[in-house]
């Protein structure tokens, strides 16, 4: 399984766009990139997934570099509700039945 590296924490003001980076230099061709977030007292929540290029949904957008070694999760106009730990995970979707290994994640602090 490819290992990921994220900044341990970030700060942003409400209303700002936030970009959370994730390095996965050993990502295999069969692996996908997933982003989750976890707020206190709840389980992680799926945000977005991608394989290459650019993916967008109603919550966030995900940019993946051409060599797939770096991905960036973008959150537009963050609010206090976006304060959470953000996890970047890479895994082979077909193997291990979706088993995901979570790292330490990035703690996003949102300043009012």
């Amino acid at each position, binding site marked *: 399984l490819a290992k990921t590296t994220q900044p341990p924490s970030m700060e942003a003001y409400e209303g700002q766009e936030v970009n959370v980076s994730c390095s996965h230099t050993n990502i295999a061709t069969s692996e996908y990139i997933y982003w989750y977030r976890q707020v206190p007292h709840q389980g992680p929540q799926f945000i977005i997934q991608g394989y290459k290029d650019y993916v967008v949904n109603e919550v966030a957008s995900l940019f993946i570099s051409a060599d797939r070694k770096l991905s960036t999760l973008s959150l537009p106009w963050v609010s206090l509700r976006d304060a959470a730990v953000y996890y970047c995970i890479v895994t082979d979707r077909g193997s291990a039945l979706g*088993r995901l290994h979570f790292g330490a994640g990035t703690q996003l602090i949102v300043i009012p």
Partner: protein
Amino acid sequence: ETAVFQTPNYHVTQVGNEVSFNCKQTLGHDTMYWYKQDSKKLLKIMFSYNNKQLIVNETVPRRFSPQSSDKAHLNLRIKSVEPEDSAVYLCASSYSQTGQLYFGEGSKLTVL
């Protein structure tokens, strides 16, 4: 909207007692998981089941035993709890060929 239900949400017990956590998912998924989140907030997978079959059994002490009656239910029993078992236990479910997991709110275990 919660679709993975865990009970109990909290449990306090003494060393040596037996504890059981229950999990039910209403999403029609064929795969269920147990994760452990320790005091440092690190998430580690413990077990995964696919259609009632044990697929993943990470290195966990033998006092932990998962039990699945059908693909919608996955329970976790801990015989003779130890202080290091104090943690939040998170249940999740997914379709087997995806990394999009749905988590419950967790069951917090405190061992005195």
